[in-house]
C-alpha cells in the first residue's frame, strides 16, 4: 500500500494537466476531454481516501461522478454538434457571438 501522498500527487498532476488542456486548447472537443481528465483526477483522490479510511462512501461518490461525467459528456457533445451544424466550426475562438 503506497503512502497516501503518492495518490494525492498523482491526482494533482492529472488535475493540473487537465487544467492546462482546458485553458490552452482551441478545439472545444479537446477541452471537454480535458474536463473528463479533471474528473478522473478527482476520482483517484476519492478512491484513495476511501481505501485509507475504510469507508465506502468515497467509492460511491466516485461512481456517481462517473455517471455524472457520462451525462455531461453526452449533453456537451450534443451542444457541440448543434453548434457545428450552425456555424461549421469547433474552435473556441470562433464561438464568440451570443446571437446573430
Amino acid at each position: 500500500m503506497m503512502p497516501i501522498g503518492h495518490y494525492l500527487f498523482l491526482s494533482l498532476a492529472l488535475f493540473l494537466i487537465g487544467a492546462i488542456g482546458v485553458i490552452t486548447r482551441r478545439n472545444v472537443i479537446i477541452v471537454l476531454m480535458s474536463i473528463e481528465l479533471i474528473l478522473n483526477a478527482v476520482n483517484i483522490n476519492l478512491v484513495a481516501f476511501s481505501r485509507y479510511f475504510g469507508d465506502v462512501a468515497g467509492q460511491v461518490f466516485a461512481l456517481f461522478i462517473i455517471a455524472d461525467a457520462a451525462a455531461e459528456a453526452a449533453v456537451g457533445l450534443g451542444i457541440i454538434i448543434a453548434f457545428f451544424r450552425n456555424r461549421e466550426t469547433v474552435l473556441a475562438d470562433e464561438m464568440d457571438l451570443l446571437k446573430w
Partner: protein
Amino acid sequence: MLDSVIFYFFAGIAVVSAALMVTRRNAIHSAVFLITTLLATAGIFLQLRAEFLFIAQIILYVGGIMVLFIFVIMLVRLDIPLPQIRSGLQKWIALFVALAVGVEAGVVIFLARKAPGQGLLIPNPAPADKLHPNTEELAKGLFDSYLLPFEIASVLLLVAMVGAVVMAKKRTDAP
C-alpha cells in the same frame, strides 16, 4: 514491492498519456491517449482494491463516453490541421502556474515536517486481505445509505439522455 511496481507503472502511463493528450494536434490521437489515461486510472483503482470501480470505469468511461467522443470527433472532422494551441504567451503562463502549484503541493505532501498534531493525519489503512468483498460493500453503500443520490443519479441520466437527443436532433421547423 509488487504494489509499488503496479502503482508506478499505472501512474507513469496515466501522466504521460495525459500530457500527450493535451498536446496532440489530431483530435483522434488525443482521444486515443485519453483512452490510455482512463485505462491507467482504472489500473490505479484496481491497485486500491476498488475492483468494481475498475470495471465500472472501463465499461462506462472507456466503453461508453470515449466511443461517444470518437463518434463526435468523426462527425465534426475538419480537414485543415489548424494550429491548436492559442497564441504564445498563454500556454507558457499556464505551464508556469501548473508547475508552481505542483511544486508547492509536492512540498506540502512530501517534505513538510510532521510535528505531532500537524501534517497529514491519516490512520493506517486496513491490510488487503482483511477487506470485505468490494462489490458487496459498494452495493450495500449504494442501496442502503446512499439510495436517494442513486435515484437522483438515475433521473439525472434520464434528463441528460433527453437533453442530448433534443440538442443533437436536426430542427425540422425553419427559423
